[in-house]
Each structure stands twice: as structure tokens, then as C-alpha cells.
């Protein structure tokens, strides 16, 4: 039983990370209809930035805030400089540009900070809080931090004029423009926010998966699965999807473990995590493309 609770708890912690990256993906998707394949690598790059700031002597939280702010700027710059000129380009061009960004960030991080795997500190000291035997301090800390970030975002989008303008620009760009919203800048801000949320996820997960240029590959895949499960057009759904997928991932591995213990037959374990995500992605896309909470898209022909 204790083991089961442990698995649920670590599923929640992973889920929090997936929820953040999924939310970043959805924020870009709802406003531009693009799936950002470079989201994971951008988050990885932000995490390296925070690591660099820490090695220069800053404390964890100062580095955290600075890295998130830098990521915001980076996101805005990428949108304005690289994607804006392509807003009427065919889908393939957009996908190719995202893959290009993915390759650039990966290679840059490797070039600047080398491909050696690095330890990344946790801001939550051992034994500070958490429930003994169920959830460790870092895992609980991750859940708390992501919940704070998600709440801030919710408040921002729900209760501030700027948040309202951004939602308007995403939902109906033409009408928004008519009532005086600067739609182009709203899209860029959306990109900046997405990059920041991704950075939070990267910094939080780095202690668990260690810091290396390929650290986000698996997480990005799970974030895709989360966004799809929740409905890729629904931000709240993406967050819910993140937690669902996080717990599901651990449950599958746990069940596989139990089966192996009981019958001695190995079916599935930690080594198949990405395969599980692949199956979720393809299953949701083909069976229920709108996800659990998404809007069903009807195409007029």
C-alpha cells in the first residue's frame, strides 16, 4: 500500500511537470494553431541558463526568477523574429522551422555547456517537509511550485485586462483587432509566457532527471500526451491531462512490476515509458482527437 501511495505521489510530481510543458504547448497552440516541437529544448536551454547563473554565485531562487524572465524575452524574440514573417507559410514550413529551433537549442546547449550530464541542486532541503515514506521534499516542492505558477497564470488570464486581451487575440484575432487589441504583440507575449512556463518545468525537473541537453525529450513526449488527453485546445484540460498522464505513467509501471512479481513474466516497466506515451498519443489522436475536455472541431467542406 505504501508503495502504491509512493507511486501516486511521484506520479503527481511528474504530472506537475507535464502539466507545465503541456500548458506551454497549448498556450501556443490556441493562439497560433502551431505545435511547438522546440518547447522541450527551449525549457532545457532555460534550465542551463539558471544553472549558469547559479555557478556565478546567485542563489537558487534568484537564478530561477532571472532564468524565467530571460526565457520570456527569448520566447518573445523567437516569435517576433522567426515565426512572425512566416504566419502565412504552409504547415510544413512551420514544422521545419520548429525542428530547426529544436536542433539549434540542442546543439547550442551542448556547445556551450558540453554534453556531460550535470547534477542539478534542489531548493528544497532534505527532511524540510514532505510526508515520510510517501513523498519526498523535492517532489512535494515541485507540485507546490507548479500549483503556484498555474494559479498565477489563471489569475492573470482571468482577472487582468492584459490577460483578457490575450485571450481575445487567441480566440478571435479579427474582432480583437477591431476593438483595439494589438494582436501581433499578444501572440508574442503568449510565446514569452509559454517559454517561461516551460522554463519553470525544466528547472523543477532537472534535479530528478539531471541536467543534459537531451533531458527534455521524454518529458516533451509526455507533455504532448498530456495536452492531447486534456484536449489540445483547452489550457485547463492540459493541466488536468498532465496530472492524469503523470499518475497513469507511474501506475502502468507499477502494475507491470506487480505482474512481474506475481507471475514472473516481464511485460512493461520503467524502460517502456516512452512507448506508453507513444501509445497514448496515437490512441487519443485516432480515437478521440478532442481529448477529454477539448472542443470538437468541425470542418466545413
Amino acid at each position, binding site marked *: 500500500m505504501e508503495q502504491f501511495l509512493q507511486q501516486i505521489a511521484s506520479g503527481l510530481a511528474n504530472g506537475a511537470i507535464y502539466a507545465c510543458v503541456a500548458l506551454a504547448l497549448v498556450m501556443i497552440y490556441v493562439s497560433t*494553431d*502551431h*505545435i511547438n*516541437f522546440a518547447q522541450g529544448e527551449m525549457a532545457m536551454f532555460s534550465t542551463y541558463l539558471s544553472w549558469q547563473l547559479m555557478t556565478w554565485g546567485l542563489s537558487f531562487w534568484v537564478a530561477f526568477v532571472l532564468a524565467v524572465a530571460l526565457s520570456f524575452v527569448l520566447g518573445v524574440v523567437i516569435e517576433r523574429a*522567426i515565426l512572425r*514573417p*512566416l504566419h502565412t*507559410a504552409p*504547415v*510544413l*514550413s512551420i*514544422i*521545419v*522551422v520548429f*525542428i*530547426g*529551433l*529544436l*536542433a*539549434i*537549442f*540542442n*546543439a*547550442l546547449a*551542448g*556547445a*556551450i555547456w*558540453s*554534453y556531460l550530464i550535470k547534477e542539478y541542486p534542489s531548493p528544497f532541503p532534505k527532511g524540510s517537509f514532505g510526508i515520510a515514506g510517501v513523498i519526498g521534499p523535492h517532489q512535494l516542492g515541485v507540485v507546490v511550485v507548479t500549483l503556484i505558477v498555474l494559479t498565477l497564470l489563471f489569475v492573470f488570464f482571468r482577472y487582468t485586462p492584459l490577460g483578457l486581451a490575450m485571450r481575445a487575440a487567441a480566440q478571435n484575432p479579427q474582432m480583437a483587432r477591431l476593438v483595439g487589441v494589438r494582436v501581433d504583440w499578444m501572440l508574442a507575449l503568449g510565446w514569452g509566457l509559454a517559454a517561461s512556463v516551460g522554463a519553470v518545468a525544466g528547472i523543477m525537473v532537472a534535479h530528478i532527471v539531471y541536467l543534459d541537453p537531451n533531458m527534455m*525529450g*521524454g518529458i*516533451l*513526449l509526455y507533455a*504532448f*500526451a498530456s495536452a492531447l488527453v486534456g484536449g489540445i485546445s483547452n489550457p485547463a484540460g492540459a493541466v488536468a491531462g498532465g496530472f492524469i498522464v503523470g499518475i497513469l505513467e507511474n501506475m502502468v509501471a507499477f502494475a507491470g512490476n506487480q505482474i512481474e512479481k506475481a507471475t514472473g513474466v*516481464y511485460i512493461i*516497466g520503467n*524502460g*517502456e*515509458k*516512452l*512507448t506508453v*506515451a*507513444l501509445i497514448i*498519443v*496515437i490512441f487519443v*489522436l*485516432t480515437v478521440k*482527437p478532442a481529448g477529454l475536455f477539448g472542443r470538437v472541431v468541425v470542418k466545413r*467542406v
Partner: protein
Amino acid sequence: MSDAKKWVLGLIAVALVLPLLKPVLPDVVSDYRLFLISTMIIASIAVLGLNLLTGFNGQFSLGHGAFYAVGAYTAAVLMDQLNVPYWATVPIAAIVCFIVGYLFGLPALKLEGHYLALATFALALAVPQILKYKWLEGLTGGVQGIVLPKPEVPFGLPLSEDQWLYYFCLFTMIVLFWAAANMLNSRSGRAMMAIRDQNMAAETTGIDIALYKTVTFGISAAYTGIAGALSASAIAFVAPDSFNIFLSIKFLIGLVVGGIGSLAGSVIGGIFYVLVDNSAQALSQFIKNDLGLQFDLSAYAVFGVLLIAIIYLMPMGIAGGIYLMWHKLRGAR
């Protein structure tokens, strides 16, 4: 005979003679260079596979590394477990990959644009793990991979192993490109392109879209799988972690740089990515050893910048650019 045909035949003739110049021009033609050209040929076949799907049929794939892996592993397992000769593994790998591609094409029918890219991207990310799956370990050798013998020169021909490999790859490439050119120039090929250009109009003219799309997926996977099988023979080694997402990205580079929807572009693209890959390695060595900088430059920095630059400057790729220039020059005369 048309101009284009003359060019192609001329190039084939040059390619056929090239390895025989080794004794005459030992400085220009070496075993290593021939091996390098063989890998370019293999790359061209893989890019052609992706081009058939994306360029001619309009279905995106960011996961063609998966089919390359299936081809390579099919060949490797056949050679390793059943002692099948290397040349026989190529058609078998093609059949296996056709079936796998066809099956993947079925769910892909329901996906368009970004979503298909997403599904194939997920596939590419998951491939190394699938290859390491415990139940397959007996066949695939798990993380260690499989070490294979290099293809031997048959009939006592007076050739080196690399010369023979070159001829074997070249022969396969000519057959495959010839088949692709004929297919594209037939009713089926026109149907494929009609689906790409005007899905609905194609359907109203009676083209069975589902059938064409899935079969194209299968053929495309078979081409890329053949390239994988050849690479297993050429490198004489397969291991799961070499079939990561970046392999699929390389194919995409070849596709975009060479030219989307162009046979010649597939060749240019294949040559291109092997060249950049190799020169980036050399450059990285140079920076580290000779300049003494701690700067681990990988080819992907170049690839990434090029991908974006090409989309901005030359959306038709190098083949498209040359074509346009050729027509401008002719028009000017």
C-alpha cells in the same frame, strides 16, 4: 533523348567508373572516400523514401528514423540469427518495412498536418526504447546492439570491400530511383500528387484516397527501410541509440535542403547531410584540438540554422533553386 535523361545517364556512367580509378588516382579515390559516397547513396535512398511520402503525397513524417531502424534491424537479425546473406536482407527488409509502414499509415489516415507530424515525432522519440524492449533482447541484443560481418566481395572479383559495397549500394539506388521515377510518372503517381494538391478534387475524380495514402506510406517506409538495411551492412553494426530523433531530423534536413517533391533533390539532400555531418565533426575536432577552445560544436547547430534559412530563402530546396536559375539563364539567352 531528353536533356535530363542524358545528364542522368552521364552521371551514372561517371559513378560506375569512379571506383576503378583508384589505382590511377590514389590521392582522389580512396577506400574511405568510396565508403563515404556509399553512405551518401544510402542517405539519398532514405531521403527519397521520405520525399515520396511528404513531397509527393503531402503526408508529414518526423519519424522516418523508425522505418530506417526497422530495416536495419531486420537485416541485422536475419544476418545474425539465420545467416541470411546480406544481399537477400534488402528485399526482405523492404517487405517488412512496407507492412509496418502500411499499418502505421492506417491511423495516420485520420491525421492531418500538425497532428501527423506530432504522431510521427512521438514515434521517433520512442524508437530507441522499443528496440531495447526486454522481450526483443534475444533478437536485437539490447543496448549492446549487433555486430555484423562486412559484405564480402563475390565471385573473386578483384575489388576491395569498400569498392564492392559502393557498387552494391549504387546498383540498389539506381533500381530504386528508376522505380520511383516510373511510379511517379504513371497513373498512380499522378493520383498521389493529386491527393497532395487537392484532396477533395482527387476524391471526386474517383481516386481511392485511403488506399493510396496507406500504400504510399508503405512504399515510403520500404524505401527508407532498404536504406536502413544497406546501412546495417555498410557500418556492420546496429545499436538502438543510433536511431534517435536526430536521425529522423537528418532525413528532414535532406528533404528540405535537397528539395521537397524532387527526385534529384533527394540525391542532393542525401549527399548534403552526410557532408555536413562529416565536416562538422572535423570542424569540432579542429576547434577543440587546434584552437584549444572548450566548444563542442555539433552538426545540428549548422542543420538547424540551415533549416530555417532554407525555409526563408529557398523554399524549394537546392534542386528547386538550380531549376529556377537554369530557367532564368535560358530565358536570358
